[in-house]
């Protein structure tokens, strides 16, 4: 058994809605080891994004606790959680979320600028080269295809050498061939940098390639 990098204990999330209190996820328990590649699947609305957000410390659960990289993030305040994210966590989103007015390079540099690391530009160029976009450094998001945008986003997620990477439906907006390229890229990152991957996806081909698979239905983990 490898070291556990993420411990999820009895997580429940409730929200207030006009129809009363809604339980989005219920009693989730998970343990993820360092270097694992984990996929979370489930129908739309089953609570995958919510679970991911809580595991990454972007949101807090109503009940339960999370231990991420040795910190009990459910007891930390927003800024402390930010700090952990900035140092050791990377993110990839379904709709890329590149800043439209920044070039690919500037987008990739953003996390480095926030953490204030040195040689930001070289590191960002390196990261873009690793995702095969060394020729697109000065392009703006609207000059890139979806697949390319997602590769920029992966470069941005990896540029800080995070220990764990969360991806929420990274191929959800892409065609088949781009999907394949993006998945391969993610796995190669896992291989080369030993980054733990947690991928929420609809894409069963992608899910199958992961070494662990969890399925969520109506907020509950069914396997």
């Amino acid at each position, binding site marked *: 058994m490898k070291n556990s990098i993420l411990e999820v204990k009895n997580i429940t999330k409730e929200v207030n809605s006009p129809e009363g209190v809604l339980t989005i996820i219920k009693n989730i328990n998970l343990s993820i080891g360092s270097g694992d590649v984990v996929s979370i699947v489930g129908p739309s609305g089953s609570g995958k994004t919510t679970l991911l957000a809580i595991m990454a410390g*972007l949101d807090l659960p109503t009940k339960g606790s999370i231990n991420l990289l040795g910190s009990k993030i459910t007891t930390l305040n927003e*800024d402390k959680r*930010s700090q952990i*994210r*900035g140092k050791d966590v990377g993110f990839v989103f379904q709709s890329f*979320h590149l800043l439209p*007015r920044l070039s690919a390079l500037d987008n990739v540099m953003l996390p480095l*600028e*926030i953490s204030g690391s040195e040689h930001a530009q070289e590191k960002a160029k390196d990261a873009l080269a690793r995702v095969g976009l060394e020729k697109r450094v000065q392009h703006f998001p609207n000059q890139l295809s979806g697949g390319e945008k997602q590769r920029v986003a992966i470069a941005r997620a990896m540029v800080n050498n995070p220990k764990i990477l969360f991806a929420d439906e990274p191929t959800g907006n892409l065609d088949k061939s781009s999907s394949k390229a993006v998945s391969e890229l993610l796995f190669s990152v896992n291989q080369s940098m030993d980054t733990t991957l947690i991928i929420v996806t609809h894409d069963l081909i992608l899910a199958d390639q992961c070494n662990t698979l969890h399925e969520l239905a109506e907020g509950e983990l069914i396997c």
Partner: protein
Amino acid sequence: MLKGFNHGLRKFWSDLTSGDLLILAFSIVLAVTAISGVSFLGDRLKSSIKQQASVVLAADLSFRSASDLGAQYLELAATQSLGVAETVSFLSMVIANEDNLLSSIKATTPSYPLRGKLVITDFNGQVIEHAGSPKRGYLWVEPKLVEQLGLEQNNEMAIGKATFIVEGILQDFPDRNVGFLAFSPTVIANINDLDVMGVIQTGSRVVYRNLFSGSENNIDEFLENIEPVPAEIRVQKIDGIGDQLGRTLDRSTRFFNLAGLFTIIIAAISSMIAARRYADRHLLNTSLMKVFGASKNFIVASQVTQLILMILIATSVGLFFGYLLQSILIGVLKDLLDAELPSASFKPIGIAFLTSFCLVFGAASPYLKLLGEAEPIRILRNDFQFKLKNNLAIYAVALFTLVVFLLLLFEDIFLVSSIMGAMIILASVLYVIGSLMVYLLSFFQSSSGIGWKLGLKNIVHRRSESVLQIVVFGLSLMFLMVLAETRTGLIDSWKETLSEDTPNYFFFNIQDYELPEIKAYLDQELDSATVFTPLIRGRLLSVQPKEGGLMKSGEMIDRESNLTWYDAIPDNNQVVEGSWWTDDAGSQMEVSIDSGIAASMGLSIGDQLNFAAGGTNFTAIVSNFREVTWESFAPNFFFVLSPELGRDLPQSFITSVKIPTDNNQVSKGFVERFPTVTSVDLNAALQQVRSIIGSASLAVQYIFILALIAGILTLIASVFSSADQRKKESAILHTLGAKRSKIFQSAAAEFLVLGLLSGFTAVFAATLFSGFLSTQVFDLNYKPNIFVLGLGFTVGVLSISIAGTLAIRKTIYTSPVVTLRNS
């Protein structure tokens, strides 16, 4: 914190050029251009008008007293680097060529006059170089004396026990008596010759004046130092002289303030819209930064850094444009204003920076807080919209900042608070009307073509945003209309003052028996019915208050006065308290009092006043207080008796008439036919007043144009920034296969209807607001100006719909793919 600062600094240029900050920067540039233009220009015009007006005092500040003022004030003022001069005036008979004439002697120091010009010529009409007073033993005299006494160069003239030499003719001098009692021609003598004349004895009526000049601050400081000024000294400052000129100055200053105020409010509204847009667009950015580990402080520090940099740049650019605009206007104005324009002060620069800091942080700080607190989870939910419920707090903060700022800037609590109060009420009214109209629109939807239908539907669909836009556009339009109406009202009222019918001659000392003949002469020559007013020389002896109490007398009370009596109240008088006497009241023994005097003497209706006139003493009951329209130039009497009291007292008559300036035959003929009647030519004094009011009108006009341009630009800017949402929609419509013409139609329809709704609400609100301002702030009668309102409405609706469609036109004619990719 420091990292955030660095980041803000590094990203500033790309953020500015990429558009988010630019919109906010643009509205700041506009606001600063307008406010600095208005205050650069206003500042210079104000001081120019003031300079011209100070000619009336020959100084910036004058102390006036019936007894010698001594040297203490002059000495103190000199140590505070103020300019000083001294005059002593009194009436005395002058004798020359075995003839004599009652003249007004003014003895001056060489430094006289501190403001205005003294023009002296010799008897050949050559201008003489001179100081502010003749050398000892010499005199300068007005042309009338030359004429009446047949004077020639270097004739001798006696005043009291001394004999002088007439050195020159007094062609022009500043502190003329504008009042109708400026009877006697003026002689200027050296102040050191007073003793040898020996005419001033205890009990003589003498006016001693100390004159001071200097910057406004120095003058105020000087006054503060000697506070309290002894009661027997009358302090006259140019902006407090309380008559027509003072009021002209006061009103034009108020108009400048109003224009500045409106410009700032409109700019504030547009900054709020821009700040909201800035925040909306930055929400993705900040949420993303949060995800990547940025702390709240980091985000706030980086934003604040950027905003401050933006303010510095935008304000400097705005100042540059403002100064440029002002120089262009001054260039135009220079020939029209005949006075030398004082150079611009640095004040507008301070005002500009204060303005932009208040505008930006008032409008943006609530959003900064929201941005700092942006939940990173928004990124996963693709949720980049601020909730509308946040807005109320934002408006409250913005409004509060605005009020504090305006109070700081204008130091006119009444003006600021009444305008802000009115604005809040109006905004609420506009909100209700807007909602109602949007609601009504929902019934019309199905009745028109598809493009129109979409447009109307959009307005109803975005109900709260539409209502907000109606309020914003409506308010901006309203401010412009109000400004236009006020300007028109003000200038019209000044025009009346300057009307060609203003009397330019006073005739007085007309006796009973001469009256019919004089009336016949004047009526025939001037082709009008001349009105004569009785003049009774009298003295108020004491006051017996109605409530019993002590009999009042003394300095304030015991004064010589010119009394008159009226049967009916003249047109330019107005009873403000009590009532005018009626015919049938058998034995009316009443007096009507100027309301200003009544207030200063603490009189009330029903008090009894004891007068002495024509060798008898009598008592009159105060029956009413009157106000006189000063602009009318008609004689004003502090005390007006009822016919019962006045009719039989010894009296002469006075009249004021307008004699066409190109026809001096009339006045010449009159003087020849009626040599005992005294005539006063007011043309010079009138000309002085005219030129001051003329400059004030021009200034108001130009300030108005400046504010108008700023207002329209700001309005267009806010239309442009409200077009954002529509861009996305039209791209989606496009993708769904809607034809360009249809999308265009729908957008045009939407802006046209928004324009119409704002236009209507603006007209409605402007009528109320102008009415309030005219009556409460400017003392004008208000009648809605149909032309101004109509024009404002048309131009407003047109500019909103044209700017609106132009703003989204680009989107309509670019490929929808580009728009969608960008979004």
